[in-house]
């Protein structure tokens, strides 16, 4: 039994390492910034997630000290990863792209990086802003 648990934990660790490395490797390999944005936000999240699951299994099944902290870190990372990605995308667009480089909204108002919100704004203060 102990043996099987150890194999499972080891498998999680190895998988997590591979995914984490893939995320960082994508950062080096891909061509432009918007493409590079994909690699770390996805692969690294699963990388850290795998490490945290392995740690939880390790403490729960081998050391017998059940610990929930890992869950909290995982949830925190899963909540913040999209927000940082969104911020970085906006930063890149504001600095390096023009409104002509992306598809049109097909509506009255353009994308919020290039166009001011209408008055009164539909959404005044969100996490996006």
């Amino acid at each position, binding site marked *: 039994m102990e043996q099987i648990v150890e194999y499972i934990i080891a498998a999680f660790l190895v998988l997590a390492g*591979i*995914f984490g490395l*893939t*995320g960082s*490797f*994508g950062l080096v*390999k*891909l*061509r*432009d910034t*918007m*493409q590079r*944005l*994909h*690699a770390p*936000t*996805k*692969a690294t*999240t*699963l990388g850290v997630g795998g490490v945290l699951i392995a740690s939880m299994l390790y403490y729960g099944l081998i050391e017998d000290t059940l*610990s*929930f*902290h890992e*869950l*909290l870190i995982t949830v925190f990372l*899963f*909540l913040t*990863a*999209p*927000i940082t*990605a*969104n911020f970085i*995308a*906006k930063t890149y*667009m504001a600095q390096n792209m023009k409104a002509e480089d*992306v*598809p*049109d*909204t*097909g*509506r*009255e*108002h*353009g*994308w*919020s*990086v290039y*166009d*001011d*919100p*209408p008055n009164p*704004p*539909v*959404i005044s203060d*969100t*996490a*996006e802003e």
Partner: protein
Amino acid sequence: MLLRRLVPHPLLSLLLLVVWILLVNKITVGNLLLGGVLGLLVPIFTAPYWPDRPVVHRPLKVAEYILVVLWDILVANVQVAFIVLFKPNAKIESHWINVPLELTSAEAITVLAGTITMTPGTVSAVLSADAGNILVHCLHTDDPDAVRDDIKSRYERRLKEIFQ
């Protein structure tokens, strides 16, 4: 009703209690009580800063949505890892996709944008100025329209059921 006045946001209170227990990492009567008190007080004190809190209509749908998204995150990770590792750079076709939104509440759009970023090969970049469209960057796809329809049918439909 008194209970309704005392606990205006039962789900938020429960969430705060769970987070508190996770933070302390020990389940004792004292911690449960303290977490319960925090869960009751925090929503009351933060109410002025968050005027139009969304009402979650179907809590079971939230659980379904979380499971669907978790599964998609797993698939997304494998897909993106394969694209990064084995696809030559010249063959990766990235697209910008314009997704019109039917959701109107700020919280629902935030959740949708987060979901899009975490799931297969897509990153949500920016909203239109009137919050009616969302611009999505897709790492690799042959058919941008299919990706747009997928987002709309898979995530937006579920979020509409939850928030509206």
